[in-house]
């Protein structure tokens, strides 16, 4: 039989008096709260050590590196072409855009980035814009879901599924596409792909309008994120933000406009910017960017040289056997092409010594590759400038003063991905 314990039950007045007695110890005492690395709102494995005064954050210290795989070290130990699949896994929500960025960086080193065939440029632009829509849709869906609007997540995933189908049709993979090659793309567009893409664009805008009716003027949504975590223009530049986070603070800087690459010069699109720099502005910028991406896609479908079936046999690769693998038919029958094939596969393309940096306007911001080449088929050093890494570094600046329940909103509006941040 258990022992009988005496329990003292105070009346309400006595309890209140006791609580007041305990109060002075709690006042001014800060609590340290560990958020993540496996927290649903940190979208991956971000850990933030928060220091709280009551419900208000007084200090935030992000702890990253849980997904560090040593991509830069790996890149030093393989040929340029072999690294393409690793770029899929940087920003794994927009693998097509990463492929394009990496291929352009190596082509800049080779000096062939201006000689890409027009059809290849259009295909790459379409890939990058599809990836942008896909990444923004996920960012938006996850952002809204963290705020309690689960429906938005379901709607955005319906559209993302169509983009996955398009990616599967061109590359054979839905997620890890590895579609580009140095000097071109893996293969030309399959028959009917442009029609499928046009259909997607036509369906996407009404679908985005529907999402917009759920959020943009929704009282709960607006009250929750407006004037939250305001990033001033000066801070945005000082902390090196890029992409929608930089434009959300009102700075009109987009690498597609300011340092045009591929065929962006021939396409019409606008760069949306925010006015306040709060979470709501960043949300609005992303919404508008998706519309602009759809606009670019529609122009590409109209303008692409060769059209849907490529009846005129427009090339999609640079005509340089020392960069792009020759067709299998020729490898089997011609001596020179056999040698090219052998050298390319075993040693990689012969890159000149030198150093280049190429920044690409990725969905999350500026994805840059700094390549230090000492000649040969392997980089001596490759630094990846990951936009999420830089964008997250502003957390210690903007978190203090926010409520603890605001953290999920701020993280959602920064829209980062840890695969890229940790590399």
């Amino acid at each position, binding site marked *: 039989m258990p022992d009988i314990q005496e329990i003292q039950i105070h009346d309400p007045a006595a309890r209140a008096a006791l609580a007041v007695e305990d109060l002075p110890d709690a006042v001014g005492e800060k609590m340290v709260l560990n958020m993540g690395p496996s927290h649903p709102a940190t979208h991956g494995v971000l850990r933030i050590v928060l220091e709280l005064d009551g419900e208000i954050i007084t200090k935030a210290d992000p702890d*990253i*590196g849980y997904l*560090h795989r*040593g991509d*830069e*070290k*790996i890149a030093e*130990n393989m040929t340029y072409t072999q690294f393409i699949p690793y770029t899929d896994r940087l920003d794994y929500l927009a693998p097509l855009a990463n492929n394009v960025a990496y291929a352009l960086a190596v082509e*800049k*080193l080779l*000096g062939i980035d201006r000689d890409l065939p027009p059809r290849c440029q259009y295909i790459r632009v379409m890939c990058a814009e599809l990836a942008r829509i896909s990444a923004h849709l996920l960012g938006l869906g996850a952002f809204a879901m963290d705020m309690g609007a689960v429906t938005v997540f379901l709607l955005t995933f319906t559209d993302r599924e169509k983009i996955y189908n398009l990616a599967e049709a061109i590359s054979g993979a839905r997620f890890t596409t590895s579609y580009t090659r140095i000097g071109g793309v893996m293969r030309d567009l399959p028959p009917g792909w442009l029609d499928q893409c046009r259909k997607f664009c036509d369906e996407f805008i009404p679908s985005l309008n529907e999402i917009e009716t759920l959020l943009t003027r929704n009282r709960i949504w607006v009250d929750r994120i407006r004037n939250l975590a305001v990033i001033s223009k000066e801070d945005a*530049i*000082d*902390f*090196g933000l890029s992409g929608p986070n930089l434009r959300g603070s009102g*700075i009109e*800087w987009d690498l597609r406009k*300011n*340092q045009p690459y591929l065929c962006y010069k021939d396409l019409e699109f606008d760069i949306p910017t925010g006015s306040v720099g709060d979470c709501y502005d960043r949300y609005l910028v992303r919404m508008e960017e998706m519309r602009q991406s759809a606009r670019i896609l529609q122009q590409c479908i109209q303008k692409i040289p060769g059209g849907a079936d490529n009846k005129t046999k427009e090339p999609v690769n640079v005509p340089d056997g020392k960069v792009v693998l020759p067709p299998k038919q020729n490898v089997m029958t011609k001596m020179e092409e056999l040698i090219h094939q052998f050298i390319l596969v075993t040693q990689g393309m012969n890159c000149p010594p*030198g*150093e*280049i*940096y190429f*920044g690409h306007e990725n969905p999350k911001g*500026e994805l*840059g590759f*700094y390549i*230090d080449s000492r000649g040969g088929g392997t980089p*001596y*050093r490759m*630094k990846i*400038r990951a936009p999420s*890494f*830089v964008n*997250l*570094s502003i957390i210690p*600046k903007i978190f203090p003063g926010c409520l603890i329940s605001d953290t999920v909103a701020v993280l959602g509006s920064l829209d980062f991905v840890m695969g890229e941040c*940790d*590399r």
Partner: protein
Amino acid sequence: MTSLEFAQKLKARFGDLISEPAEFRGEITVKVSEAEQIVEICEFAKKELDFNYLVDISSVDNYGEDPRWTVIYHLRGLAHGGELRLKTEVSEEKSELPTVTKVWQTANWHEREIYDMMGVRFRGHPDLRRILMWEGYPYFPLRKDFPLAGKPSELPGVAFTKPAPMAGGPFVTVAGGNDAIAREPRVRIPETDAVELNARVEARGDNKETRGRAFGPGPIEPKK
């Protein structure tokens, strides 16, 4: 103003400290001969030449050469769109240079990453800790003498201080223990399925009288 003109302005101001601008693929690179002066040069580039945006800081390990480290700063001016790359070298014995966090705050994490990956220290950095690897990791993995396969090191002891709450149970993996198939109590092998099922039905006493019960098979009655 082009990037080359910016580089020449920098050269005009600092003289021998700055090398002749080198161009490759349309990018301008200047070498800074004395790493200690990097803050002054960066401040001048930011204030006078309006390079308000620091894109990136990279580092290169020139293993077997002297000086061993190269630190590379990518500068950009958002107003004029010009870009400039500054390079400076640091010897292995010193492995230290001043921080530029006071010029651009974004340098904070870039410098922490270089410290973490290469082991180059930045003097005056407000918070020079490891960033991608964990605190207490003994190596610098991006150095050329660090093997690709890695080196064994002790993981921090905070991850698994106690056995997992359901360790030893069917759903918790134990290092070196049985695999999931072997541990799974309900595993069935297809050939013996029918035999086993019959045996189980028999053991349970699940016969015609008990089968019709509303709430499951009911208590197992001992065989008479």
